[in-house]
């Protein structure tokens, strides 16, 4: 793989990573500097440098709202994209994404149980369950789905069977959620629906202490799996004949994907399309199948695309926000369509 990494190509990759890095920094800065409340650039710089701004509330806005939000967008984009890449490689399917294993549906079921079930348990005088409870519920839900998938994948050899089972578990969870929605109160229903629209603004600075390490762990595992992911490009038979331990590999990749996609879903709700679209963009700009190049490129591109989506969703200069899920879909879908039309060979993309 690196035989063909002739110096020219290495330089090209370096240049590409440099550009992506600069773009990430630029967009992150732009994200912190823009928002519905106008704060002068010099004041923001002062706040970031640790000084006191003209108005004390500006400090809260920048440090407690904008900064965590930009960081959340960056990390969520990275996490979803890299888990999408892993799923596309493991399942050798260009339409696979972070959620094919039914992780989101599991998380949704967890959240629905809490939000919608809450009104049944505490019949009167209820307030909405706290943020931490939602996070825990989503995590438990996706963890439960992962556990079942793991149990199955020990017994089932064929990876396509696992893919189909993942989709079936997901559909079953969605069906259960629909039943609960039907029987739940309006207020609870609304708060559940809002959760499904996704939000990057809910991760507080305290929660970031959990969010950041979880994403870092998942990304590290995936970076360390680059070699086996490369071998899986040839399919499981070839991978095994090259000495890959398939069970261990599946276990590692599933764990990493669940940590990444499960955490993002728990903190930000189900965010679609980034995970499917970004790995394809990364393949196109790197023109490389090697995961040692693809994973970093996917991580950076994912961060960039999510920052852009977030900036768009906040409609700079307006009071209101768009749901992040709609923005990622509206950005992600054209990308996928464009790639299909440009390549004409979507089935051979991975």
């Amino acid at each position, binding site marked *: 793989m690196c035989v063909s990494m002739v110096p020219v190509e290495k330089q090209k990759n370096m240049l590409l990573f440099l550009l992506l890095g600069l773009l990430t920094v630029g967009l992150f800065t732009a994200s912190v500097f823009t928002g519905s409340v106008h704060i002068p650039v010099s004041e923001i710089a002062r706040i970031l440098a640790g000084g006191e701004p003209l108005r004390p509330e500006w400090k809260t806005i920048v440090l407690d709202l904008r900064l965590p939000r930009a960081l959340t967008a960056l990390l969520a984009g990275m996490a979803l994209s890299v888990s999408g890449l892993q799923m596309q490689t493991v399942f050798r399917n260009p339409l696979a994404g972070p959620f094919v294993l039914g992780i989101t549906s599991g998380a949704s079921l967890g959240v629905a149980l809490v939000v919608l079930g809450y009104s049944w348990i505490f019949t009167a005088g209820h307030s909405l369950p706290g943020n931490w409870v939602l996070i825990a519920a989503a995590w438990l839900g996706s963890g439960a789905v992962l556990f079942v998938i793991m149990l199955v994948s020990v017994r089932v050899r064929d990876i396509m069977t696992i893919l189909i089972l993942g989709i079936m578990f997901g559909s079953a969870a969605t069906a259960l959620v629909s039943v609960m929605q039907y029987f739940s109160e309006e207020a609870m229903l609304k708060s559940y629906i809002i959760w499904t629209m996704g939000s990057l603004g809910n991760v507080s600075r305290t929660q970031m202490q959990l969010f950041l390490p979880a994403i870092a762990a998942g990304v590290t595992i995936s970076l360390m799996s680059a070699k086996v992911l*490369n071998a899986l490009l040839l399919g499981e038979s*070839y991978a095994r*004949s*090259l000495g890959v331990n398939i069970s261990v590999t599946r276990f590692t990749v599933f764990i990493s994907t669940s940590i990444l996609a499960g955490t993002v879903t728990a903190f930000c709700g189900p965010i679609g399309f980034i995970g499917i679209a970004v790995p394809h963009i990364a393949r196109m700009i790197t023109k490389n199948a090697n995961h040692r190049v693809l994973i970093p490129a996917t991580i950076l591109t994912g961060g960039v695309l999510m920052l852009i989506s977030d900036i768009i969703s906040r409609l700079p200069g307006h009071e209101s926000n768009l749901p992040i899920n709609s923005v990622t879909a509206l950005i992600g879908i054209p990308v996928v369509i464009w790639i299909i039309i440009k390549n004409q060979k979507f089935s051979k993309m991975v």
Partner: protein
Amino acid sequence: MSNKNTEMLSVTGLSIGYPGRGKEQGMIFSGIDATAGKGELVALFGRNGVGKSTLLRNIVNLQKPIEGNIMVSGKEIGRFSPNELARTVSFVSTERISVNNLRVTDMVAFGRFPYTGWTGKLGKEDSAVVEKAVQMVGLAHLSHKNINHISDGELQRVMIARTLAQDTPVIVLDEPTAFLDLPNKYEIVHLLGRMASENNKTVLFSTHDLGIAIQEADKVWLMLEEHLAEGAPEDLVLEKSFGSMFSDSRLTFNDSTGEFRIRKMTKKKIGITGSGRGLSWTKKALERIGFEIDDNASNLSVNVVRENSGKFKWELHSPGKVKEYDSVYRLCSDLKTGFSNI
């Protein structure tokens, strides 16, 4: 037992079949005993569905045998660690690999997988091995081409180069000549033969191209109805094993020419005289259109004459009549139409 030291691969009392439990488990073939030595090219023949692929998958440990032993350099295949096995046996399956943005050298470099560290980065030595493998299969000029943009024959060579890069004493290939045109079939089998003799590898491959394979193979494993027969191709011819491979079909094996032929309903006997090439090719043609060659045939015979100019002509003798032809084609068409009712 005397040649035990040279046996790289040995299979004893092997039963193979579908994986599964209880009733689901299906035995395909049992009682397989076979060996392959160092530096030998071994061709595996057998009819569709007899279990060639299953046998090969068992040998490379992608599937577990129902019963019996597979030993590679004196060690039971199941006792190898995954990495150790990957350094001992390499495999080319029938699957046509298509990965985007993967170049020829990238694919060959996959062979270094068992030797590289956790990052998978190739060292200088690895790169040299890869380059050498690409050269051996004659693809140095394509080394930077995308594997989706090369021909089937070239891709097969790439997959073979990958096994060379994997540097295993045993190389197993499942139908490497399927879907290739005739020159490519010959080239691939010849390449496998070179790998066996020049690099001292044990190369085992399954194929249906019997005629090509027996010209190169040192040994043949022939999966018949009930057992696996092994030996030099010539041994199996002399034992009449090839003929029995197709005993239930209309195919017959001519054990002096080494050719297969569809058995046809013989309509009529015909005599033939002449000599040399003209005679043998005319015989073939007459058999093709359903005549049985019989030198005692009284009322119909062909005489092949070579004229001074070097051209051939054919005289057809029937009762009270002699007719001349200037080509086998004309002779045959007349025999098929005009004389079919004689």
